[in-house]
């Protein structure tokens, strides 16, 4: 009795032509199997067995050796569940604005730190989930939030009044202040080779931390200053991350 697509597939692979009331009931609800039954040539074509690939006997030993080498702090951190790695990244990221306030109390009020923190958690959660099948549009959407949120908030709420005070200084300050977090990301990341979208997400996350630090460092409400000196750090980190992935890819080729 055929009640599933897999059973119908298996019947085809055995060289049978599935038929009967149970098949009719199944295909009435399953467009894929209906198409398959309507075109048996497709089923027969797909029933061709792929060549078998034999494994090098040394291969298992090689994989086992790789795994045996997974020791130390980095291996421990990498093997933590994703939610714990995200939590650690958040703790590391939170330290930086706190350090900024402690080291150098300044007129910034941290108005937008909460939404930046939320976007940071999202970016880390998506990027760190290497064992999940995250659709590309979700990654792109998260990247748009991570890299675009500071610019959007500041573009909408800032003013054009006052003086455009040296955005380059804030850019350098925020970028340098958030850079140590990159070390924590490296410790927490499981993959040896990151894809462009995941690398860009981590770049965007670093930019959000820089934006949060600058929220306490600088009280400027000038739109140009905030976009050029604060929001652009995230874009620079995203560009650097993509450049790094490209460079590594070119070197591997």
């Amino acid at each position, binding site marked *: 009795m055929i009640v*599933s*697509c*897999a059973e119908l*597939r298996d019947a085809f*692979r*055995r*060289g049978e032509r599935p038929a009967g009331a149970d098949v009719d009931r199944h295909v009435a609800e*399953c*467009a*894929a199997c209906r*198409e*398959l039954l309507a*075109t*048996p*040539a*497709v089923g*027969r*074509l*797909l*029933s*061709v*067995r*792929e*060549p*078998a*690939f*034999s*494994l*090098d006997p040394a*291969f*298992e030993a*090689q*994989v*086992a050796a*790789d*795994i045996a080498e*997974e020791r130390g702090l980095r*291996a421990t951190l*990498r*093997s*933590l*569940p*994703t939610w714990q790695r995200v939590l650690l990244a958040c703790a590391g990221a939170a330290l930086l604005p706190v350090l900024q306030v402690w080291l150098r109390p300044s007129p910034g009020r941290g108005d937008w730190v909460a939404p930046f923190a939320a976007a940071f958690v999202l970016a880390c959660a998506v990027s760190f989930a*290497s*064992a*999940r*099948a*995250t*659709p590309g549009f979700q990654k792109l959407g998260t990247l748009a939030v991570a890299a675009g949120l500071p610019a959007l908030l500041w573009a909408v709420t800032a003013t054009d009044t006052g003086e455009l005070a040296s955005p380059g200084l804030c850019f350098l300050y925020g970028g340098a202040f958030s850079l140590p977090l990159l070390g924590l990301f490296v410790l927490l990341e*499981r*993959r*040896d*080779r*990151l*894809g462009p979208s995941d690398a860009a997400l981590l770049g965007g996350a670093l930019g959000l931390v820089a934006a949060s630090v600058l929220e306490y460092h600088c009280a400027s409400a000038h739109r140009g200053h905030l976009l050029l000196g604060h929001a652009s750090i995230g874009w620079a980190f995203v560009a650097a991350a993509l450049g790094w*992935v490209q460079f*590594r*890819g070119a070197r*591997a*080729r």
Partner: protein
Amino acid sequence: MQSDEELMLAYVRGDASAFHELFRRYASALLRLMRRELSSQSEAQDLVQQTFLQIHRARNDFDLSRRLKPWVYTIALNLKREYLRGRKRRPTQPLDQSPEPGVDAVDPEREDRARALRRVLSSLPRQQREVIELHWFDELSFQEVGQALGISTTAAKVRAHRGYVRLKEALTGLGLGNLAPESGIEP
């Protein structure tokens, strides 16, 4: 015999022999998955090696109430996609080439059939091809295919349906639309 999930549970609890059994169950299938788009045995083997390393690193993420197979395939497919994207070139067609060391010897007729299969499958968009390959060659149910690709079961079936329609067109284009069992392409 222990199920894959029981073995994974044993492995998460520290039983190294469970990992060896999982390796024996999955390594060949994963190698075949990689070889579909990679012409080089060593590249494919490298990706399989990385897949097992990722399984090891992500072992604490595995939800023991779920099936292991789609989870393993998710990791393998993520790695393969990232690798192919990094190389910035179209996937090669290993079955159109002479077999390399590591490919079991096959008779010429079987090679012809496999080549025809590869030719028509490669005409499909990646999303449809992936679903069909996972369902037919890797023997995942559509539910498992959906889990492995991060889409719903319905979306997996829709992709398969569209893929079958395109395969039919491709077969017709190749003059194989009325393929009969005696035509040489059969189970």
